[in-house]
């Protein structure tokens, strides 16, 4: 049996059979799921309630109409969304009314009040004063109610009588249709959620497993285990065994998460359906092609970054030196995570396309582009080709640095020295 196999096996077994692995595999997702469940439960316990508001109208024309329009708004369960407790038209002294309403809001006798200034017709902005903005997720109902009220009064002042203004003005909300490779699907922010989730998972795992590889190499150096190992195994086999072993640990972790996550999702979906049969329910539908690309980019990206992190681990002799030297590599990952905003905004812009071709950014940025829309196949192919070439080059260079680095102790070598190692026979 090749020696490489024993190196991979040891790396895998000693990592999987640790408390750290069990904790990070079981506890992290449990914690996240717990948080979600907690939020869902709290949200279910505290259903949306009717908001008590007052309206102060300095114009004396808009208040009642606005109130009646707001009263028509319904919560999903059919209860009214707003209860307008009082409409103050032409308040005799606005200076004393305002503090009074504020105090009532503070004391939670009101959830808030709408202040319509006298100059609203000439562009002065109405104000919604609230204690808890979270309870007012949307300003839309207020904006549209006021707009309708203003149109109605203006029409009236010009002698036009309109019986059913809201029917006349009813506009449809715009639905966002997402063009995918397969066709059209209504997008409720799904593609964004998937892209953000994937970028985060890719970023987190590339960083986590990359650093694990670095620490593992460093540990063999600091414990001087390396001295015996190199007398039995070629440095390249050691390096490859290490990277493959950690990769196997990572895939095991993903597999556990995928299986348990799938089970949980199926169960959770049924729960949601049972609790709320009417609601369409927000469900994420991850296209298999996107997932497949994510896995491919993750694996190649992992080899790219793990090889660099391993080289860092081999070069230094202490954790502090490692922290310094790994910064540039970590910055590449952090960089792709920061740049993903640009790609999200316009996945097809020339900047996004260029960024997704750069091998160090491709594992995250190209996957985002794939999740958001289907980029032309040649672009995926080119970015994969560049990524594979860069990875092979980096592995070659890392192996040469590693070979020298593992036997060097003491002062952290300069980058110039490290480059010189590349030429050693």
């Amino acid at each position: 049996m090749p020696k490489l196999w024993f190196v991979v096996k040891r790396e895998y077994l000693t990592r999987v059979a640790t408390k750290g692995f069990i904790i990070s595999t079981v506890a992290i997702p449990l914690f996240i799921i717990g948080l979600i469940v907690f939020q869902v439960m709290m949200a279910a316990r505290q259903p949306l309630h009717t908001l008590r508001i007052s309206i102060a109208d300095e114009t004396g024309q808009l208040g009642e109409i606005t109130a009646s329009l707001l009263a028509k708004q319904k919560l999903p369960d059919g209860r009214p969304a707003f209860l307008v407790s009082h409409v103050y038209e032409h308040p005799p002294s606005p200076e004393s009314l305002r503090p009074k309403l504020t105090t009532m809001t503070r004391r939670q006798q009101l959830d808030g009040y709408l202040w319509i200034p006298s100059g609203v017709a000439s562009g002065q902005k109405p104000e919604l004063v609230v204690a808890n903005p979270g309870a007012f997720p949307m300003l839309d109902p207020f904006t549209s109610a006021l707009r309708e009220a203003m149109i109605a009064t203006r029409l009236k002042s010009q002698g036009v009588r309109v019986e059913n203004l809201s029917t006349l003005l009813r506009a449809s909300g715009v639905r966002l249709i997402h063009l995918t490779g397969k066709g059209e699907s209504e997008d409720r922010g799904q593609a964004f959620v998937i892209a953000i989730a994937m970028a985060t998972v890719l970023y987190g795992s590339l960083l986590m497993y990359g650093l694990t590889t670095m620490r593992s190499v460093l540990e063999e150096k600091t414990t001087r285990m390396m001295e015996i190992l190199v007398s039995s195994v070629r440095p390249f086999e050691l390096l490859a065994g290490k990277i493959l072993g950690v990769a196997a640990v990572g895939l095991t972790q993903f597999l556990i998460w995928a299986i348990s996550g799938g089970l949980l999702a199926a169960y959770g979906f049924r729960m949601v359906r049972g609790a709320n049969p009417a609601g369409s329910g927000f469900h994420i539908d991850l296209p298999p092609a996107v997932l497949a690309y994510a896995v491919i980019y993750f694996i190649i990206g992992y080899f790219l970054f793990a090889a660099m992190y391993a080289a860092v681990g081999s070069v230094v002799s202490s954790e502090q030196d490692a922290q310094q030297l790994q910064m540039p590599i970590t910055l590449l990952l952090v960089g792709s995570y920061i740049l993903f905003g640009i790609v999200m905004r316009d996945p097809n812009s020339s900047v996004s396309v260029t960024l997704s071709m750069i091998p160090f950014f491709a594992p995250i940025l190209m996957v985002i582009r794939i999740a958001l829309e289907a980029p032309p196949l040649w672009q995926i192919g080119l970015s994969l080709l560049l990524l594979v070439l860069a990875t092979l080059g980096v592995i070659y260079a890392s192996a040469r640095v590693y070979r020298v680095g593992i036997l060097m102790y003491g002062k952290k070598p300069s980058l110039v020295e490290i480059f010189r190692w590349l030429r050693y026979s």
Partner: protein
Amino acid sequence: MEDKADAVMAADVSKHFDSVTAVHKLSLRIQQGALFGLLGPNGAGKTTTLRMIMRVLAPDHGDLRIFGQALTESVQNLIGYLPEERGLYPRMKVLDVLVFLASLKGVPEAEARERGRAWLDRLEIGGWAARKVNDLSKGMQQKVQFIAAVLHRPRLLILDEPFAGLDPVNAAVIKEIMLEMHDQGITVILSSHRMEQVEMMCESICLINAGEKVLDGELRAIKQEYGKNTVRLEYSGDGAFLEMPEVIEKLNRHGAAVEAKLRPGADAQKILKAAVDRGVSIRRFELMEPPLNDIFIEKVSKRHA
């Protein structure tokens, strides 16, 4: 494999690191079954030489053969190595580390497990087989490391400063096993900067300094070449009688004992006479060959002169 081939044959082997020459044109023959001492001060190039023998480093120039063969993986499996800097995976179980290292040398796992247990029992740490390396004392870890070097039954055993950091009891145990391996016909290379240790055990040696061979050959022959030019003295009383520059070229005081190197052709009896004349009582007076340390210093200083 040729039976009579040298265990190690190096011809004009050199190794450079950038501008530093670690080993320069080193030629060396170590016969099969020899107990060989590789000697030199720290930084002389001993470890680099050993690493080339173990195929960890490739020589820049020269030819290096182990048992008559070029270095390959199967040759690597014939070598056992105890590095100067000791260390094992701290969080692995003792027996698991041994099995892992043996499997890297091509020993099937079940067999490695069995042999590992036997060795641990023999070195009286059998009860620690399932404990983590971290839980062991330093001395116990050294024993485990020694087992790792011999578990796969190497034909060439390389020990780099094997007694460093060992207490006298453990040092005796290791020495005993080392001599036992030697009796079994295993070639043993002992690398050390402690000349007096090697002097007592090794039959042939190679002395290197600053990457170059200073001298090599059978220890007895080397010493005979220098002749019995040193007097070892133990006495009580005033040491002033030793101030006789016409006879004594150099004095080494070791507390209770003194080693006096004689001038060529000088008569050692004159020292004895001077002591008796001054009423100093002599407990020991021995005419002997110079210690290896002195030979080394002489050789090195001559070169630089």
